[in-house]
């Protein structure tokens, strides 16, 4: 199969997945109790006003009419208006993307910085204390719920030791960076860094544990291969063998997982963002669910769904380029 055809097939599958997400969400909205008008106006507002609002929103139309109108609007990027704030949902979603991306990327960096060295140590010192330490860390990391970890980190490092703030994001990374580039003022960047450490560690812990395990098993796999023995036999220093050959080959599956996990991190930051009041998509989603602000709930989940699909297609495409046998399968 040609690469173009492969990409087209994956894209069509992606469109189907997004359509499925949209439809399921719309169905959920239809069966969820709660008259949207009661969510929009004060309970003391009279019956006539309620009826007028219902008509204005098209809620008096049959459900299939509402569905097709929603699909029509969606195709032109119109996700409707929030019941709670009356703001365009598209704007409300897009403005929260940077915070979530910052957190997802920071969590990835935390994971890589900790996981790769740990995985290498563990993989090269199999069945030694360092390996036991690293594998125990992985097990604990994978088993620790991040809402608990986040709260513990806040209680210990913010409330008791006063080393970090309890949460929030007083400055956006792009603003802090712009400030630094235009005035060389580094304070905003440091403030951002100070605030993101605990959320990033919280969100990145599971990921750290996962990558540590992958690195360890990858290293062990690679060490068993003949080319490693050959390079060692040539007298190449062990450090070079380890990092230039073994680790480099181990990184291929890790990078694939990284790409896929980024999508998970975007969607999975909900708990961490809530614990740390980090103003990303997750926190907005929780508030929207709390208020049953359906247009906003749909908007955020559809956005996350589309992101996930795009990242998956991109990963598939890269993988197909690297390993053309996939095209034949």
């Amino acid at each position, binding site marked *: 199969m040609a690469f173009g055809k492969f990409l087209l097939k994956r894209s069509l599958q992606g469109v189907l997945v997004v359509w499925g997400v949209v439809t399921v969400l719309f169905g959920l909205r239809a069966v969820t109790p709660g008259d949207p008008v009661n969510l929009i106006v004060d*309970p003391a*507002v009279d*019956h006539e006003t309620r009826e007028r609002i219902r008509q204005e929103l098209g809620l008096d139309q049959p459900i299939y009419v509402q569905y097709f109108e929603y699909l029509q609007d969606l195709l032109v990027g119109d996700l409707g208006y929030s019941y709670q704030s009356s703001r365009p949902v598209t704007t409300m979603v897009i403005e929260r993307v940077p915070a979530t991306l910052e957190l997802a990327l920071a969590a990835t960096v935390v994971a890589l910085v900790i996981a790769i060295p740990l995985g290498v140590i563990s993989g090269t010192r199999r069945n030694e204390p360092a390996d036991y330490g690293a594998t125990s860390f992985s097990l604990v990391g994978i088993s620790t719920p991040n809402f608990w970890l986040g709260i513990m980190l806040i209680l210990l490092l913010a409330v008791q030791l006063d080393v970090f703030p*309890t949460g929030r994001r007083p*400055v956006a990374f792009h603003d802090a960076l712009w400030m630094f580039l235009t005035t060389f003022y580094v304070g905003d960047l440091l403030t951002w860094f100070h605030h993101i450490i605990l959320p990033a560690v919280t969100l990145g812990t599971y990921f750290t544990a996962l990558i540590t395990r992958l690195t360890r098993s990858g290293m062990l796999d690679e060490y068993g291969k003949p080319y490693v023995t050959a390079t060692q036999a040539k007298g190449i220093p062990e450090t070079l063998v380890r990092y230039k050959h073994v680790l480099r080959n181990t990184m291929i599956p890790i990078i694939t997982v990284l790409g896929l996990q980024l999508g998970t991190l975007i969607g999975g930051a909900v708990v961490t963002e809530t614990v740390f009041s980090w103003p990303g998509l997750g926190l907005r989603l929780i508030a929207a669910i709390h208020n049953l602000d359906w247009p906003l709930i749909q908007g955020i989940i559809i956005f996350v769904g589309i992101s996930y699909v795009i990242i998956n297609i991109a990963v598939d495409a890269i993988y197909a380029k690297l390993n053309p046998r996939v095209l034949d399968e």
Partner: protein
Amino acid sequence: MKGADNLYSGRRSVLKATGIIGATAGLGAIAGCLDDPTDDENGDTDELVITQGEFIENPDPNDHITGPYFNVLDPVYEPLFNVTPEFEFESRIVEEWEDTDEGAELTLRDDVVFHNGDEMTAEDVAYTFNRMIDPDLGIESDQAAGLGAIESAEALDETTVLLEHDVAPSLAEFEYANYGRVVNEEWIEEQEQPVAGDDEEAFNGTGPYQVVEYEPDVQLVLEPFEDYWGEEATFERVVFNEDGESSGRVNALQTGESDIVDNVIPEDVPDVDDEDGIEIRNETSLRNVFLVMNTGVEPFDSMEFRQALNYAVDNEGIVNDILGGYGEPMTQPIPDGVFGHNPDLEPYEQDLEQAEELIEESGYAGEEITLYAPEGRYLNDADVAQTAADQIDQLENVDCELDIVPFPDISDANSAPYDDDEMPFYLIGWGVITGDSDYGLAPFFTEEAPQETYRNEEISEMIFESQTIEDEDEREELLQEINEQLRDDAAWVYLHSQDSVYGVREDLEWEPRTDEDIHLWEIDS
């Protein structure tokens, strides 16, 4: 491999040690030296940070009606009147006011300026009222419900506005004095409706503070408005931000990131009490929590049955055990502090024997009823409902079970007719935020009202009559009589008025109000 490792062990050990020391020092430096702009734990009295559980839905001051919304917007869009904690009205933008045959005439200050430099006119004030009560002007305002008596507004001259109404002057006063954050007509008509911008340009009020930074649902940063007509602002910088979790707000208070936090739940109170420099301050609010019974549905159509449920529930015990003492048992539909509250009434005291007798008298012995309740909407609401349901269930001749449902279900039930039998018995709360009984009585107890749960023609007529009595004393007397009848007729199962509980930096001079408003001009450091 091991040999190779050993060759480098000396150098590696040094590098490791250096790395660890460097990382520790770096983190320490960041943690210790960073000057967090929201952190004033070192006693920076020029900055005030207020963390609320809820934030503004949008920047439009005429759109919504919640307390947290007014707290954030009032420093920017100041109220027309100063409302004292005792619900007395004092001049602010409105200097004088009187009721005439045509309505209420408000005389305005002539030196009020909007933050964009435009002078405030009577046209702006009239436009503001019309904007709230006339949906054709661009928004469906929640505040319209609180301005039900005001029919229209008109500028009579540069500084005089006429508000037409045909109700008792004191009722009209409670309405117009509580709402009406003035907007600049020309400016607002250039905005989308309602105003929904996402930066500081989305605000243009006349208040003592102007917005210098705004991030929707995250924070609003204020600084004094230099051309403000009144007293100079107390703080050089004020930050309002949001944290939806009580524990998160308390943590922010403990670490000095915040100076005032609202809605501290009883479970988090000890964390504040145990910390030096911060304390709990509380005040009974105007928010009642009660059990609604649709009186058009059996068995709730029986007064004896309704009274029995009131005698079955120990509302004082619920306040002490479930709310940690942060509340007051209800004695009637209208809380203490509101015009028309009857101070002579006592709560129903738990009396299981009398309750069982009343059930027998009602003819509904052996009934099985279900109490519906939300979770997370009011202070420990699910626990309150569980306790009430258990106490009713312990009567020999009635069975009661609890069903926790999403709040929208409760909201739907509350807007259903009084004879709707789908969910006729449920827990809900209501804040009488205008300070007048009418806002707590008319929506529930008048015929065809939006939230009518109880039908009694006599009571309905009395409420309508109370809306037109000009003499304040006479009107208060009638409202008190209505409250007494509703108490005796057991229109609801009366539970409690819940407290507003705040965590506050100890050195701040500020007392919580019954109306749950936080006014910056009432805070001093």
